[in-house]
């Protein structure tokens, strides 16, 4: 019988304590961020989709079309082409397509690149209604950026 009353009183007390906690938080400022109006700064190491790094002087991509990124990619989402041009040492990149629909952002491509030609971008507002929106032409993107 005493256990009954003990439980009754301690139970009721626990309920009021609970109310006290939520009541306190009711008057405290909100902690959420109003996302579309406010933007989050991505950390320097944020791994977005990859992008090409331009050569500082020419603005052309640094890529030498060695194909290591293509080989290292687990989901085969990189396809690139290059051609020999006169007066230029090595190959010149003509096409760099990233199929972002299958990319898992693992970073194997960036790690396998010995020439420092690709990096992670900081883009994250990437929602889109069509699948084709996520086949990125990275050369076009590079030109648009510069």
């Amino acid at each position: 019988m005493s256990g009954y009353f003990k439980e009754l009183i301690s139970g009721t007390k626990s309920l009021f304590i609970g109310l006290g906690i939520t009541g306190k938080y009711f008057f405290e400022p909100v902690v959420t961020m109003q996302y579309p109006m406010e933007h989050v700064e991505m950390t320097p190491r944020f791994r977005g989709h990859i992008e090409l790094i331009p050569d500082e002087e020419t603005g052309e991509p640094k890529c030498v079309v060695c194909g290591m990124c293509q080989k290292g990619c687990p989901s085969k989402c990189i396809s690139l082409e290059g051609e020999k041009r006169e007066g230029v040492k090595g190959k010149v990149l003509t096409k760099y397509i990233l199929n972002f629909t299958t990319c898992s952002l693992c970073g194997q491509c960036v790690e396998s690149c010995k020439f420092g030609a690709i990096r992670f971008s900081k883009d994250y507002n990437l929602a889109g209604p069509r699948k084709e929106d996520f086949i990125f032409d990275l050369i076009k993107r590079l030109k648009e950026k510069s």
Partner: protein
Amino acid sequence: MPEPFRVILFIIFVMAFAGLNAAYLVWCERKGAGHIQRRIGPKEVGPFGLLQPIADGIKLMTKQLFLPKGADPLLFMAAPLMVMVPAIMSFMVIPFSETFVAREVNIGLLMIFAFASVNVLGLLLGGWGSGNKYAVIAAARCVSQNIAYEIPMLVTTITMVMVTNTMNLNEIVRAQAGWFFHWHIFRLDISLLMPVAFLIFFVCSLAETNRAPFDMAEAESELIAGAYTEYPGMGFGVFFMGEYANIVIGCALSVILFLGGWQSPIPFHPVGFLGVIWGLFWFLTKLYALIFTVIWIRWTYPRTQFYELLNLSWKVLIPISLFNLILTALQIKIFPWL
């Protein structure tokens, strides 16, 4: 004003009140929940998201009303009304202010309880008529829960009737005139357990209206949406409005029986039109404070388990309310001058 005219006016008022109430209680609930959880809640539609309920209403109304395969058409369609209509009917006897009441019925209390029982029937039929297993489970839960909770609620009410000698709601309020310590909840001279009785009544009205933590009938993490699982668009909307109307009724009864109804905390009551506004102000203040508590409770506790709920009713609430009844009777008999 001629009587029929007055009643019609009141019906319009009550329906508007019930509808707007439901809409804006949803807003309050969402805002309240938001701030308790340290977020903002609705904010896009209108200033402070104030037009959100209207947007929600439009959305619900434009949704297709369809009948699930295997549902009983009549029961399925009638059920939302059976929740909504009794709730609105109950408003007819609630004294919002001394003279601001549709009908001063002598057995107002009885009437509200009679209508409150219909509400359960609505949920039961809705659950059964949907032909959904989750809904049937919810309906069965709802009925046994309501039966269990009607007993302590009625016993407490009987205590109050015994104290006031009337079932007329306005009379009950008048009996609490004067300072705030004349409200029944503070009348320890009538019964030492008066605050406990209020707590019991409040808990029971939570259970009666299927509000958290007693929302076993809806139990979204167990039964999807309980009895409402199959309801589309406004079918669900009407259920929802009925539920909120019931919360208002439950809280209004608590206010009337224990918190002095439209009485102000100080013995001051202007006459005439100002008196009506004065009474209305105090009634609504108390009412919404109580409704806020209901919302606050919902966003604090986990849901109770079904048998624990029945345990609570049979092992705690009913014995205490019976004890309170006897205690009150003794106190009235032994100290009649109080």
